[in-house]
């Protein structure tokens, strides 16, 4: 028998196998095994603003995701397979991209940094019965609308504001300098509006020693912020409380210096003022700002491992909330997948509902969701920019430096 004949025979003999295989394949295609089979890896759709005005922050969040697989694998967690989605900093695109990731086989969605975009993704995940693990988004209704597939370890706006008040009181008490008047400058997007709303609602409850003398909302994607700062100056506050994004925070700082607005302090709640790009762009003028924000607790083992991996992969960069909470979201997914032992949506949902992680990276006791899918209390820190680095100054158990308050005047730096 020639070789060719042998090949044909072999081919003929295996045809049955092929048919059986094809039949099995057809059955497999008919049943949504994608979400049912035990699997060695889980497909995670990471939805972030990777282009548009929030691109820098979205890409910064991705850095937290990028270091997670190696760190988690080394700690015995299963493999994570990433699928990337770009919201383009737009709510409608966030919705479409969430759909696309799910259609492409994502077992779970992580994202989406911005409250409005995350709300859009949450609606899709709810309709499609796919878990959404929120990395960063503070709008309270995300976990107040009865969603069954949304899980958030990030604090809500009222939690952030509540801790911001508590940390401010400690800060003023420690240093004996209390502002009597504060101007509130906030972005007019979903995040800024909800946070500013929470701030106003909670001010009487916390009996703060100051009066909010001016509340100024602005478009974070504007060009010139001189008018915003001029309005602050006209109100003559002793301190400024800013709820900003990144580029506007840089521009506002420049205007504060140029318009010679000296303050007892700048308090920031939200992103922008602690980010690397801000610290580089503002240099010495970015120092002394107090960020009242959720933060990383480097006293935790997981946070230290994350920091080591981060330093290797992104030398010269400072770590911040974006990295910690995006890393924690990956940890939540890996932990749930490990316990579920399957990528089936309902198995993952059940596992997520029973999450109990104490060795995470961010400040607080750990991650345990309530019935709404929210970690009930997520403490926030006071983080001060010092010599171009954000350092935790409060709460005491996570602090690595003592606060400088009041801040130094612009001309004495």
């Amino acid at each position, binding site marked *: 028998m020639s070789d060719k004949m042998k090949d044909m025979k072999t081919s003929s003999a295996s045809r049955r196998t092929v048919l059986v295989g094809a039949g099995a394949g057809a059955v497999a295609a008919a049943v949504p095994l994608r979400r049912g089979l035990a699997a060695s890896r889980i497909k995670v759709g990471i939805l972030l603003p990777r282009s548009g005005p929030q691109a820098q922050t979205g*890409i910064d969040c991705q850095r937290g995701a990028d270091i997670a697989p190696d760190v988690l694998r080394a700690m015995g967690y299963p493999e994570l397979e990433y699928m990337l989605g770009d919201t383009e900093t737009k709510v409608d695109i966030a919705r479409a991209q969430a759909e696309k990731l799910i259609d492409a086989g994502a077992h779970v969605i992580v994202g989406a940094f911005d409250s409005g975009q995350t709300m859009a993704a949450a609606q899709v995940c709810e309709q499609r019965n796919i878990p959404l693990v929120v990395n960063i988004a503070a709008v309270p209704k995300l976990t107040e609308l009865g969603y069954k597939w949304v899980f958030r370890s990030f604090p809500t706006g009222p939690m952030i504001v509540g801790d911001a008040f508590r940390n401010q009181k400690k800060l003023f008490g420690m240093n004996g300098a209390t502002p009597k008047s504060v101007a509130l400058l906030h972005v007019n997007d979903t995040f800024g509006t909800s946070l500013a709303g929470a701030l106003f609602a909670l001010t009487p409850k916390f009996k703060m020693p100051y009066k909010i003398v001016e509340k100024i*909302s*602005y478009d974070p994607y*504007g060009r*010139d912020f001189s*008018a915003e700062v001029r*309005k602050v100056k006209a109100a003559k506050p002793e301190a400024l409380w800013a709820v900003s994004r990144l580029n506007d925070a*840089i521009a506002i700082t420049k205007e504060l210096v140029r318009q010679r607005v000296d303050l007892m302090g700048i308090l920031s709640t939200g992103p922008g003022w602690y980010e690397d790009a801000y610290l580089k762009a503002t240099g010495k003028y970015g120092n002394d700002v107090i960020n009242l924000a959720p933060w990383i607790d480097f006293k935790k083992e997981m946070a230290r491992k994350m920091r080591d991996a981060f330093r290797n992969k992104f030398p010269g960069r400072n770590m911040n909330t974006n990295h910690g909470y995006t890393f924690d979201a990956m940890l939540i997914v890996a932990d749930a997948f490990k316990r579920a032992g399957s990528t089936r949506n309902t198995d993952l949902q059940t596992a997520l509902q029973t999450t109990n992680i104490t060795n995470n990276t961010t400040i607080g006791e750990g991650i345990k969701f309530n019935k709404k899918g929210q970690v009930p209390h997520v403490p926030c820190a006071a983080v001060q920019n010092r010599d171009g680095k954000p350092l935790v100054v409060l709460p005491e158990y996570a602090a690595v430096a003592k606060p400088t308050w009041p801040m130094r005047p612009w001309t004495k730096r």
Partner: protein
Amino acid sequence: MDFWTLTNAVASGLLIGLVYGLSALGLSVIFGVIRIVNFAHGEIMVMGMFFALVMFRWLGMDPLLSVPLAAGLMFVFGYVLQRVVVSRVSHLPEHMQFLLLAALAIMIVSALLLIFGPDAQGVEVDYAWESFAFGELIIDYPKMFAAIAAVIVASLLLAFFKYTTTGKAIRACADNRMGAQVVGLNVDRLYALTFGIGAACLGAAGAIILLLFEVHPYLAPGYTLLAFVIVIIGGLGSLFGALVGGILIGVSEAIAAILFQPSMKTAFSFGLLILVLLLRPQGLLGKAAR
């Protein structure tokens, strides 16, 4: 609101408005002569910003000193673009021209992203954080220098169109293309020159604006929209109108921010635009269609 707060706002709006006006001049020049709406307007300006950024990083060159270089480079870019690409679609329906320039805009953004990444980047000149005061009036140096540079560039451009033979020839093309051809003008070359001059304006504006704002690839659409608003308010095709429109937008936004809320600034500009369209559709200094 006290007098000085308002005075400071008006002064700042005036200075920034001059810079906005210069950036809108590029759009007005191109539309006024070639009758093509440049949807890649903001992107070309952002290219000028990045060029000035590179010159600052490599040579330590102040963006104001980069202005002639950025203008020259963008002139060549605009000239070649008109000759090689835009001239070939000028006979096609307008929506196809729009698409071509919108596609070009997307390509420029993608290229800038590849080269420079998404981060906002700026220059740290010695006077970046400095200001001076006349009593309660505080003017910051970057804004003042940017406005002076914008006035110089705009004056040179207006003088070019008014006093030079080439400038007059371009105006002749704008007034009557066929007439210009009949008297022997090389219209294709003049169109390419015009596109080059428009792009040079944007290059210069980009280098100047870098003094004031950080640059990132996604900055462009906002500037394109702003230029449209300014040019429509000032009068399509009117160079002086673009400057006036820029000042009006700058000042009205500053006053709106002070009197109402800063988040109302953009709404105020668009309100002004609607008002002009209703009361004087040809723009404040534009010629009525005959």
